[in-house]
């Protein structure tokens, strides 16, 4: 028996560990370091209809136990991803979750329709929460009604289950979660980054060329855990949790909060082997906790 397997809509995961979107490109670079088939799944970089060059540099800045980024959804565009990136990933026995972004509903729908037809794409992750593009993105993620309509529109065309990625930059994240559930979402992924800023003390200017950026890394974990906990109580669809995971204990915390699987973002930059390391450490951790199968941990905090 595989003690780490998790079944989610569209996704039969060997284990609940996957790299988060934007922190793993389309897998090639990490594929040079280890066998990608080890992973539960891979969330690929946001794909937009047209190729995007992204924001000016600097695009990243360090913060205490975290980082800001404003990459600006740089990606080769739908066609490039379909032609070059996804086929390369087919050599691995790993489900792909395609992160879909856009500036208006029609973009999302078009990308979702096409990319969900790729053979190794087993689920979509609707990015309604990117704080780093001027229009679209985050506005879809802060208004429940708009979020719901977008979810509906994408669900109507997608050939695979649709997960919606929530923004933490809201007063009540459960309202958005319930809205996308009502819109037909099969699952939720959360959290995207918190909007933050750093100024150069010498010049007073923002360090990131874009001005603001998205905060990620261990610093945000307490916010992510709180939100996963709240949302998992509010909806009946599964959650893939993320935000600050950097070691095996963090995975236990997210599952206990109510996530069914987790994604690791920023920590890949700190330790490029973090995903396989956690996967390797998990069975011993289950032993330590006296738990047989990882699914027993899911939502533990609610039962207490």
């Amino acid at each position, binding site marked *: 028996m595989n003690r780490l397997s998790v079944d989610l809509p569209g996704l039969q995961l060997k284990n609940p560990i996957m790299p988060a979107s*934007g*922190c*793993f*490109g389309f897998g*090639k*670079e*990490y594929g*040079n*370091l280890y066998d990608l088939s080890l992973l539960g799944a891979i969330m690929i*970089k946001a794909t937009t209809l047209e190729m995007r*060059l*992204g924001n000016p*540099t*600097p*695009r*990243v*800045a*360090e*913060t*205490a*136990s*975290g*980082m800001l*980024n404003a*990459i600006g959804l*740089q990606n080769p565009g739908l066609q490039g991803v379909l032609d070059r990136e996804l086929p390369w990933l087919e050599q691995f026995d790993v489900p792909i979750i395609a992160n879909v972004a856009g500036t208006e509903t029609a973009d999302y729908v078009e990308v979702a329709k096409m990319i969900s037809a790729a053979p190794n794409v087993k689920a979509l992750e609707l990015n309604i929460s990117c704080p780093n593009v001027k229009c679209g993105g985050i506005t879809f993620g802060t208004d429940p009604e708009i979020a719901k309509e977008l979810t509906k529109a994408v669900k109507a065309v997608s050939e695979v289950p649709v997960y919606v990625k929530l923004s933490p930059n809201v007063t009540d994240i459960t309202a958005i979660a319930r809205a996308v559930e009502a819109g037909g979402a099969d699952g939720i992924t959360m959290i995207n980054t918190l909007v933050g800023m750093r100024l150069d003390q010498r010049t007073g200017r923002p360090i990131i060329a874009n001005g603001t950026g998205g905060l990620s*890394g*261990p610093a945000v974990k307490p916010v992510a855990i709180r939100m996963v906990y709240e949302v998992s109580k509010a909806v009946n669809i599964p959650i893939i949790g993320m935000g600050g995971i*950097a070691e095996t204990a963090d995975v236990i915390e997210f599952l206990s909060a109510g996530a069914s699987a987790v994604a690791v973002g*920023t920590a*890949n*930059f*700190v*330790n*490029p*082997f973090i995903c396989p390391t956690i996967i390797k450490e998990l069975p011993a951790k289950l032993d330590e906790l006296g738990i047989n199968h990882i699914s027993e941990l899911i939502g533990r905090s609610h039962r207490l």
Partner: protein
Amino acid sequence: MIIQDRMKVIKQRQVAKNNFEMKLSGKLVGEITSPGQFVHIRVADSFEPLLRRPISIASIDKEAGEMTIIYRAEGRGTTILSERRVGDEVDVLGPLGNGFPVDETAEGETAILIGGGIGVPPLYELSKQLTAKGVKCVHVLGFQSADVVFYEDEFKVLGETHIVTVDGTHGTKGFVTTVMEKLGDDFATYYSCGPMPMLNAVETMYAGKKGFLSFEQRMGCGIGACFACVCQTTEGTEKAYVKVCSDGPVFPAGVVAI
């Protein structure tokens, strides 16, 4: 191949004001393929500072399995690095990127190596490899002032060396271009590493010559996955952008839009 190595600190010494030389030993050294490659260093096991620091490889001793880096302790991360002591272990990812092409200069030809500040270190291993194969190296090394000059003697052993300081406290007063103007352009290749304005001046002055420039950008992953470290390319180049960490840090002159 890129590996993550817990390298041992076998030497740590100050070589100029705020500038340190650290010798590290570990199997990563065996993977280095060219001068100008860099490593990505986690300065402490804690999550603050969080990100790795990109630092050039300044010299390699493959037989001993040792490499040297030279870095300026300025911000949080490099200051912590400077507090590491002999015997400590440091988490190093590398070697990363594509370095300077030594084979672009033939035996007997002359190469000019122009470095600025913390851009000087990778030129040292480059010069060692060039001179070893019989290339005549001329070094133009720019610093802010006398107190931050390092490795002058080491470079002198390898070839003609011009030190330039902005405030004139050591060597020629001015910028690297002040010396370059006098040297003329009777050379086969130039190699340069330093701050953007310097690279710009060098490329402009040596327009038309064969040259290779090493760039800096703020980095996330260091291996090409996060798109943090992109540079726009000049028109006419095939790609719209390049990644400093994995496509560079060294690019032929004319590729990157400075």
